[in-house]
């Protein structure tokens, strides 16, 4: 155990608490990061409610909803992976981590599918944007937000999956135990945060102007 205690900490619990606190501070940063773009989106939506509603109808609720489900599943498997580490069950850590990565991959796959639809429909703001009707300029803003927000969210998922590869290596070497599970714990926090961002993204982007 002691080899996993960095020289500058007094004991394992100080080390774990410091990591967890550092991660929470980072989560606050992430909340502000996504929060600012949500604010910008909210203001533009308030200025152009009709245009945003109309543009939103070009998105597929089905794909968005399926992706929400996939992401919630991955959050569950991630939470169970952390739990396995707390209980010292190495095999199930590995199993749940792989499940989380597969679900994350599925989410990104569906995202790619959605993006390719948008490319075919010429809905790429700035570069290739063809939109009929009086709301065209505002719809372009909507799609700018759509790509920035979902793109940044997807980027976070890719980073999360990258970290999980490292965790998988740690788990396979039996390095994640009930004494030392801070890495998987803070990755879990991060992954759930990404889930929460999507929980807000989905209704605000996909489900407006449907009624």
């Amino acid at each position, binding site marked *: 155990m002691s080899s996993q205690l960095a020289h500058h900490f007094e004991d394992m619990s100080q080390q774990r608490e410091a990591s967890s606190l550092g991660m929470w501070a980072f989560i606050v940063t992430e909340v502000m990061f996504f929060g600012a773009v949500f604010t910008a989106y909210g203001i533009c939506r308030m200025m152009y409610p009709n245009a945003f509603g109309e543009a939103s109808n070009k998105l597929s609720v089905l794909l968005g909803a399926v992706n929400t489900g996939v992401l919630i599943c991955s959050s569950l498997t991630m939470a169970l992976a952390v739990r396995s580490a707390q209980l010292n069950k190495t095999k199930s850590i590995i199993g749940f981590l792989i499940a989380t990565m597969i679900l994350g991959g599925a989410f990104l796959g569906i995202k790619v599918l959605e993006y390719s639809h948008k490319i075919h429909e010429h809905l790429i703001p700035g570069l290739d944007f063809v939109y009929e009707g*009086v709301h065209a300029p505002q719809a372009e803003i909507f799609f700018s937000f759509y790509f920035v927000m979902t793109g940044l969210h997807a980027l976070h998922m890719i980073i999360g999956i990258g970290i999980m590869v490292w965790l998988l290596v740690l788990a396979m070497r039996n390095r994640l135990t009930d004494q030392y599970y801070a890495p998987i714990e803070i990755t879990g926090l991060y992954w759930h945060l990404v889930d929460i961002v999507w929980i807000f993204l989905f209704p605000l982007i996909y489900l407006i102007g449907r009624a």
Partner: protein
Amino acid sequence: MWSFPLLPDRASTVATQVDMLYFFLVAVSLFFSLVIIVGLVYSAVRYRKDSKASREGAVHEHLGLELAWSIIPLGIAMGIFVWSSVLYLGMHVAPSGAMEIYVVGKQWMWKIQHPQGNREINELHVPVGKPVKLIMTSQDVIHSFYIPAFRIKQDVLPGRYSTQWFQATTPGVYHLFCAEYCGTSHSGMIGKVIVLDQPEYEAWLAGGSSTAMSSSGAELFKQFGCQTCHKSGSSQRGPSLDGLFGKQVALINGEKVVADQEYLRESILNPAAKITQGYLPFMPTYRNQLSHEQINQLVEYVKGLGGQTSASEHP
């Protein structure tokens, strides 16, 4: 070269009021600076390392003092806040009946047109003693219309009207600056404000033989076929514009807006934004067909079609 001003010209009604606040602030600043400097110098000299002055009774905290130097500055600050906010509101709300002059900023010049039709570039002729309201927009980046002698400044944004007003008090020639960085020749986007006596101003107006803005607007109204939909009297396709200006308009989403210059401008450029109740959104945008000056002329024309003449009170 060695005779240079230390105080700016003061040539508008608000300039005097702003300066009073300014000098009050200078006095407050001098007072507190002096308190701090005297305190520091006194302590530094009297309690230098080698001095024999008694250090007895030194304290490390004193609630009374802390509260005093929190609450007194707070009181002063709130006083300044109220004073300056009242002044600011007055600086923002143009008196009704102010004469309106249209300003278009572009990299890097000011284009100005008077309702009588006179155009000028980088110069603004105004009469003394009359409230003047500037209705300003930009055709590219953000500029800022700044007349130091009048103590007024307002950013001029693309895509909307900004307004400000002043009443000049002293005839003369004053600086006009662009105060918001706008690119290479930002410092060349300057001009003169020429304040004239009323008769001189009228002479100046008469000197430039030109078509009134509303007449030019009427021309454009015909040229672009606006009257095919916006017929006077009852019409099926577009709302009538007679007597529209200054009135409340009910929109299809249930909101109500005042038909001011900004509303008219937006309705020409982005007609779908605010649709009047009982009409359909099929008016096309005239975004790329009209220059900013032409839009101003159309607005001035519609304004002249009746309704209240008083200016809207949006900043």
